[in-house]
C-alpha cells in the first residue's frame, strides 16, 4: 500500500513541481553524505564537533562580540525615547518591535561576519593546520564551525532576549501607571475608557490565541438562523451572489475538445444566449419612491381613478461576474422582464432591431406574487443575456449571477435557491426558456459535491470593507460572522473575550455641544447548540481594536454565529470577513511567546551561519560576506521588483529607450525578458527569509502559532542542511594544509 502511495505521488507531476526544492535539498544531503562522505560519516563524533564549536565560541567571546549587545540595548533605549504613540499599548508595541528588530539585526550581522570571515582567516593565518592535522574530519570541521557560531548567536539572543523582557516589563509597569493616571484624571473619552480599562485588567504584554470566522455574510435584517429565508434590503445596500459552473459542455453544448473556439461559440449560449430567473418575495418597509412617472398625454386629461393608485412591484438589478470577480455582463447589456411572454416579445424586438429595449436588467421589475413550482408564492424576474455577451463565459471555470435591490424601502426575502440559469432552445420557432426544451446550468459544487451556498455581501466601501449603515430605527445591514468546528474559547472569570476591529465613517452626523457621540455596535451571539442568543453593546473607534466579553454560557458548542449591527445613526461601518471579529480562544504567557520569537530568530541565524560558512569555503571573506547577503536577501529583493519584472519588461524597455532598429529592439527585448525570467527563477532557489516572521504576531499581542515555527524550521532544514553538506564537499576537496 505504502509503495503504491509513493508511486502515485511520484507519478503525479504536479507533486514533483510543488516539491522539487525539497527533492533537490534531499538529493544534495543524501548524495553528498552517502556518495562522497560515507567514510567521514562513519567517523562522525558529536564530542569532537562540540569541542570544535567551543573553539569558535571562545574565539568569538575573546573578540568581544558580545559587547555589541549593550550597544544595541543603548540604541533601543534611545530610539524608544524618541517614539510617539497613539496610546500606551501602541507605545509598548513599538518598543517591542524595536527590541526584537535590534535583536534580530545584531544576531544576523554578528553571525554573517563571524561565519564568513572565520574559515578564510584560519586558512590565511594557518590556524587551520592545528585542526586538520588532528584526527578530525572535514564534516566535523564544518559542523563544528556552524554549531560554534550558532552558540554565539544563541548567547546574543539570550542576552538581548533578557534585556527585551526586562525592559518591556519595566515599560509596561510605567505604561500601566500612566493608564491608571489617565483614567483617574478622566482625560479619556468614553470610547477609549473601555479599551484602556481592558489594558489595565489584562496587561499590555499579552499573547492571545485568536480564532477568525469561517464565513461572513451581510444581510439586510436580522436573519432567523435556523430558517432558510434571508433578507437583503433597499437599493444596493446588500447583494446576493450565486455561483454557477462554467462547464463548457453545459453552456455551449458538446463539441470535440480540440475543436477551435469558433466552433463552440456558435452553439449553446453562443446561439441562444442565457436566461436568468430570479425568484423571491418582497415587503415594503416605507413609501414607494420608484413608481414610474405617468407619460404625458395629449388631448383631454382622462379622469383620475378614485382611491389610492396600486403600487407596482419593486425592482431588481441583475448582472454576471466572472471567476476573477470582474463584471462580465453588465445589467444594461441584458433584457429584463417580469414574465416569459414579455421576455419573448422583447427578445423578438431586439432580434429585429438589434437595439436594446428600455427594459434592461438595470431595473427589472418583479412580477406580482404568483404560485411557484415548489407550491409556495413568490415574485419572479427574468434576464436574457444575448449570445454576443454570453460568449464571454467561454473561458470561465465558474461565474456568478449577482442580484441586488433597486428600490428603496423594500425588504427582498431570499430563499435557499433564488437564482436559476437556463440555456434556452428554439422549438417550433418558439424560444423555450425553462424545461423541457431548455437546459439548466448547474450550480457550482463544493468539495463535498453539494451546491455552494449563496453569498450575501454588504455594499463595498472605498476601503475594501463591506459596509453596514447605522440607524436608530432598526438595523440596516447586519454582518454575521460564522464559526464552525471551533475549539471552545477559554472563559476568563466566566467571560469569553472577543475583539472587534472595524472602520467607521461619520456620514453627516450632527454634533451637539459637549456630547462625544461615540459609535456603538450591537453584538448578538447565536449559539447553535443551545439555541440561545446573547446580546452585548460595544463602543468602537475606527481601525482600533475594541474589546468586549460575553458570558461563558453564550457559547456552548463548536458552531456559533456572531451578528453585528450599528444603532448609532450617521455611521457607515466597514467590516472585513477575516479580521473584523475574532474570538480569543486563550492566552499564553508573554515570556513563552517571546521565547518562540527568539527561537525563530535563532533558526534564522543558524541558516545565516550555514550559508556564510558555505560561501567562505570557496571565496575570500569579503566576497563570501557579500554573497551571503545576496543569498539571504535575493528572494526578498526579487519579490520587491515583482511588479516590474513581469512579462513585457523587455518590450517596455525597448519603448522607453526608443530602439527604432527592429532587430536591435528584438534582441534587447528578448534578452531583458530572458534575464528577468532567469532572475525570477534564481530567486525561487533562494531561501524565503519572510518565513522567519518573528515580530508581526508578538507585537500585536498574538500568540505565535506552531506553524510559524515549523515553517522556519522547514526553511532552515531545506537550505541550511544542504548548505552545510555542500560546504563539507567543497572543503573535502580543498587543499588547506600541506
Amino acid at each position, binding site marked *: 500500500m505504502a509503495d503504491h502511495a509513493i508511486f502515485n505521488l511520484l507519478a503525479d507531476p504536479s507533486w514533483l513541481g510543488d516539491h522539487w526544492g525539497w527533492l533537490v535539498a534531499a538529493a544534495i544531503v543524501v548524495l553528498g553524505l552517502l556518495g562522497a562522505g560515507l567514510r567521514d560519516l562513519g567517523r562522525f563524533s558529536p564530542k569532537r564537533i562540540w569541542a570544535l564549536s567551543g573553539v569558535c565560541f571562545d574565539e568569538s567571546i575573546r573578540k568581544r562580540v558580545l559587547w555589541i549587545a549593550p550597544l544595541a540595548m543603548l540604541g533601543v533605549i534611545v530610539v524608544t525615547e*524618541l517614539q510617539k504613540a497613539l*496610546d500606551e499599548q*501602541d*507605545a509598548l508595541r513599538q518598543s517591542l518591535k524595536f527590541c526584537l528588530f535590534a535583536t534580530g539585526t545584531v544576531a544576523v550581522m554578528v553571525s554573517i561576519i563571524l561565519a564568513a570571515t572565520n574559515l578564510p582567516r584560519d586558512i590565511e593565518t594557518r590556524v587551520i593546520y592545528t585542526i586538520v592535522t588532528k584526527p578530525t574530519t572535514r564534516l566535523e570541521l564544518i559542523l563544528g564551525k556552524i554549531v560554534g557560531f550558532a552558540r554565539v548567536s544563541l548567547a546574543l539572543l539570550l542576552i538581548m532576549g533578557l534585556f527585551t523582557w526586562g525592559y518591556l516589563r519595566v515599560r509596561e509597569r510605567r505604561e500601566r501607571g500612566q493608564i491608571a*493616571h489617565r483614567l483617574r484624571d478622566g482625560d479619556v473619552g*468614553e470610547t477609549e475608557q473601555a479599551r484602556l480599562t481592558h489594558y489595565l485588567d489584562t496587561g499590555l504584554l499579552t499573547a492571545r490565541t485568536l480564532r477568525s470566522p469561517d464565513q461572513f455574510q451581510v444581510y439586510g435584517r436580522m436573519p432567523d438562523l435556523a430558517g432558510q429565508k434571508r433578507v437583503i434590503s433597499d437599493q444596493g445596500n446588500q447583494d446576493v451572489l450565486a455561483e454557477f459552473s462554467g462547464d463548457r459542455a453545459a453552456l455551449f453544448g458538446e463539441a470535440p475538445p480540440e475543436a477551435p473556439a469558433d466552433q463552440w461559440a456558435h452553439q449553446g449560449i453562443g446561439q441562444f444566449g442565457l436566461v436568468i430567473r430570479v425568484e423571491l418575495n418582497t415587503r415594503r418597509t416605507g413609501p414607494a419612491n420608484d413608481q414610474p412617472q405617468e407619460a404625458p398625454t395629449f388631448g383631454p386629461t382622462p379622469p383620475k381613478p378614485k382611491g389610492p393608485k396600486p403600487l407596482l412591484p419593486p425592482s431588481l438589478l441583475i448582472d454576471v461576474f466572472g471567476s476573477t470577480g470582474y463584471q462580465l455582463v453588465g445589467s444594461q447589456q441584458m433584457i429584463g422582464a417580469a414574465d416569459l411572454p414579455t421576455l419573448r416579445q422583447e427578445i423578438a424586438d431586439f432580434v429585429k432591431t438589434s437595439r436594446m429595449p428600455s427594459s434592461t436588467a438595470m431595473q427589472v421589475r418583479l412580477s406580482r406574487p404568483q404560485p411557484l413550482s415548489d407550491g409556495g408564492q413568490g415574485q419572479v424576474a427574468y434576464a436574457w443575456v444575448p449570445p454576443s455577451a454570453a460568449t464571454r463565459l467561454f473561458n470561465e471555470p465558474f461565474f456568478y449571477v449577482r442580484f441586488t435591490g433597486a428600490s428603496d424601502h423594500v425588504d427582498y426575502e431570499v430563499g435557499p435557491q433564488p437564482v436559476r440559469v437556463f440555456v434556452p432552445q428554439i422549438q417550433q420557432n418558439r424560444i423555450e426558456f425553462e424545461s423541457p426544451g431548455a437546459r439548466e446550468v448547474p450550480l457550482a459544487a463544493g468539495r463535498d459535491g453539494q451546491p455552494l451556498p449563496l453569498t450575501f455581501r454588504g455594499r463595498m466601501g472605498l476601503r475594501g470593507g463591506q459596509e453596514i449603515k447605522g440607524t436608530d430605527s432598526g438595523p440596516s445591514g447586519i454582518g454575521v460572522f460564522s464559526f464552525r468546528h471551533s475549539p471552545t474559547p477559554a472563559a476568563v472569570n466566566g467571560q469569553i473575550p472577543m475583539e472587534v476591529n472595524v472602520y467607521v465613517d461619520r456620514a453627516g452626523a450632527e*454634533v451637539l*455641544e459637549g*456630547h*462625544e457621540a461615540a459609535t456603538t455596535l450591537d453584538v448578538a451571539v447565536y449559539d447553535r447548540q443551545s439555541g440561545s442568543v446573547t446580546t452585548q453593546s460595544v463602543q468602537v473607534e475606527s481601525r482600533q481594536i475594541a474589546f468586549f466579553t460575553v458570558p461563558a454560557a453564550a457559547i456552548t458548542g463548536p458552531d456559533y454565529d456572531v451578528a453585528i449591527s450599528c444603532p448609532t445613526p450617521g455611521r457607515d461601518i466597514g467590516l472585513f470577513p477575516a479580521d473584523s471579529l475574532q474570538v480569543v480562544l486563550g492566552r499564553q504567557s508573554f515570556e513563552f511567546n517571546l521565547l518562540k520569537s527568539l527561537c525563530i530568530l535563532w533558526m534564522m541565524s543558524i541558516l545565516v551561519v550555514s550559508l556564510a560558512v558555505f560561501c567562505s569555503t570557496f571565496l575570500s571573506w569579503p566576497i563570501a560576506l557579500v554573497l551571503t547577503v545576496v543569498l539571504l536577501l535575493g528572494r526578498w529583493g526579487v519579490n520587491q521588483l515583482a511588479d516590474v519584472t513581469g512579462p513585457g519588461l523587455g518590450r517596455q524597455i525597448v519603448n522607453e529607450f526608443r530602439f527604432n532598429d527592429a532587430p536591435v529592439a528584438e534582441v534587447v527585448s528578448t534578452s531583458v525578458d530572458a534575464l528577468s525570467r532567469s532572475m525570477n527563477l534564481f530567486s525561487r532557489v533562494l531561501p524565503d527569509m519572510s518565513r522567519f516572521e518573528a515580530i508581526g504576531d508578538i507585537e500585536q499581542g498574538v500568540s505565535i502559532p506552531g506553524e510559524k515555527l515549523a515553517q522556519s524550521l522547514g526553511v532552515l532544514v531545506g537550505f541550511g542542511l544542504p548548505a552545510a553538506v555542500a560546504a563539507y564537499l567543497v572543503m573535502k576537496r580543498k587543499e588547506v594544509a600541506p
Partner: protein
Amino acid sequence: MTATAAPRPRPPALRQSARGAVAILLILSLLATAVARHWVIAHRLASQPHRGPAPPTERTSLNNMPSYATALLLGGLRGPLAMSLWISSQTQLQQGNLQDLDTKIEWIRLLQPEFDAVHLFQIWNKAYNISVKMTSLSNKYSAIIDAIDYGQKVDLERPDDINILSSIALTYSDKLGNSQESAYYRRRVRRETQTLVRVAFPISRVDEFKAAAFKLGWLEDEAAVIRNQRTHTAAVLLERWMADSLAQTFQGPDVSMQFEQRAETSSNPSWRLLRLPAVLDDRGYILSDLLEARYPRPAALAADQPWYDGSQLQMLAQYQPFPYGLSTFALGYNDYKRCQLLQDLWNEHPMQSNEQVIDGRPAIMLELWAKDEWERGRRFELRMVGAIPPPGGDPVELEAPTAAIPASATIADQAARGGAEYSYGLAARLFADARAEFRRHMNNYRSRAYIYFSHVDDAIAMEQLMLADRDYLRAVAASGAARQAAMQSAITHYTQTQQHFALVILRYWVDELVQAKVYPKDPATGKPYTQETIESADPSLYLPTLDAVLRENNRYFADPDTGQYLPDRDQYREERGECLVYVAHCKIRLANLQPATRPATTP
C-alpha cells in the same frame, strides 16, 4: 627583479611636532568657528532693530542640532532616512493605519528641524488628515491638540517663527473653532484652559451629585464621574464657577473640592496630550510663565507703540481674568497677533500666505472671539432663568428665547447670570477692539479696505447690543437706583443697536432699485440718499426707512401672477434676516423695559 628602497622613517621629533601643529590648528579652527557663529548671531540680531536683547538662555536639545550635524551623526544617511520616513508615513496614512505614524512624524521632525515647510505640513497633517481618520469626537480632538502640541514644540525650538505661529493659530481658529465638530471642540477648549476643581464624594451620593450638577449645565460626556471602587469614592473635574455653584447645594463633610494638581508625566515618551494643558490659574489669570517676556519692552517706548515681547500669551494679558475659560478664538487671536507683530516689527514674511492675510487675521479673530462670547452669554442667560439651552444648532436661534426673558424674571441660577454678564461685557470690549484692529488693517491695505467696511459697521452694532444685554442683566439683578440706571443705560444701548443694525442693512443689504424707491431725500442736496450716503442721514430716520424697505421688498420681489413674495429672488435675504433678528431682539427687550421702568420711577 628590482629591489624597492624602504621608505626613510621620519625622525620621531618631527612627527610629534607635526601632530602638535595639527592639534593646535584644529583647536584654533574650533575657536574661529565659535567666534564666527557669535558674530553671525549678533549681526542677525542687529538687523532686527525691534527685537531687543536676545533671550538669556537657549534650549539645548537633540532637535536643536542643525541638520548637517544630524547628517554627520547618522553617517550621511539622514536624507535617505527622512525620505523613506516621508514615503512610508504618507502611505500608511492613505491606508488608514495609524500605528507608528506619530513616531515617524516625530522622527521626521527630528531629522529635518530647520525646514518650516516640513513643520507646517505636519501640523496640517495631524490636525486635518489624521484627525479625520478618527470617529470619536474625543479622539479627533486629541489628534488636533497633538498638532498644536507639535507646533508648540517646534515653537520652543524655533521661537518667534511667523510660519509656525500662524499654523498654530490656524489650527485653533479654523479646525477647533470653525469645523463641523466645533460645537464639541470649543466647549472643551474653554474647559481645559482653566484650572479645574476636583470634586470628590462617596459613591453613594453619585445620583445626588448628578441631579445637582445637571441643573448647572454639567454634561457627563464632558466631565465623567470617575468611580474608585476600592475607596468607594467618586470624583469629577468641574470648572471653578460650576464647582462654586455646586457647593451651595451639594455639600457635607464627605464632599471635598480641591483645585486639580496635574501630575504631568510628559517625561514618558509615549505620553500624548489628551487634553489641553491649563493656561489659567484658579482665579482665571494667565499662568505667569506664559507671560514671561523674553524681549522686555523698552521703558522709552511710547505706550501706544506695539511691542513683541516673546511671551506665549502676550496678547491676552490685557483681557484677563478669564473666570470662564479661554475661547479657542482667543488663542487664535493671540498667535495671529504675534504673527502680525513679527511681520511688522521683525520683518518676517509668511511662507504659505501673504502679508495682507496675516495683517487682517487679528481683527477677524477678535470678531469671532466676541461672537463666541456672545453665544456663550446667551446660553448662560437661558440657564439663569432655569431653561436648558439647546446643545447645538445656529446661535442666531438663541436670540428669540433670550429676548423674551422679562426684566422682572426670577433668577434661578446666579452663577449663570454672572457668566452671562461677564460674557456680554467681554464681547462688547472685543467688538470695540476688533473695530480698531479692522481700521488699522484697512489703513495698511487701503486698496482692499472696502472688504472690511461691513465688518466695522457690524462690530459697532454688535458692541452696542452686547452693552445693552449686559446692562439688562444688571438691571434684572439690581434694585432701586442701580436698577433704574442699568435700565436706562440698556434702553439707550438697545435704541442705538437698532439704529446701527438698521444702518447696516441700509448700507449693505438692500437692492439698488429698492433703495432708489424708498430712501429719503438728503435735505442738503435734495437728492435721495444712497447706500454710500445713508450714514449721514439723521439716525432717527434709519428705522422708518428700514420698515419702508421691508414693505417695498415684499412688493418688488413678488410673483407678478400671485403677488407672493419670492425669497429666492431676494439676494440679500439671509444677511438682512440675521440683522433683523437682532433688531427684533432689541424691540422685545425695549418693550420689556418700558413697563418695568414705570413702577421703579413712580414710587
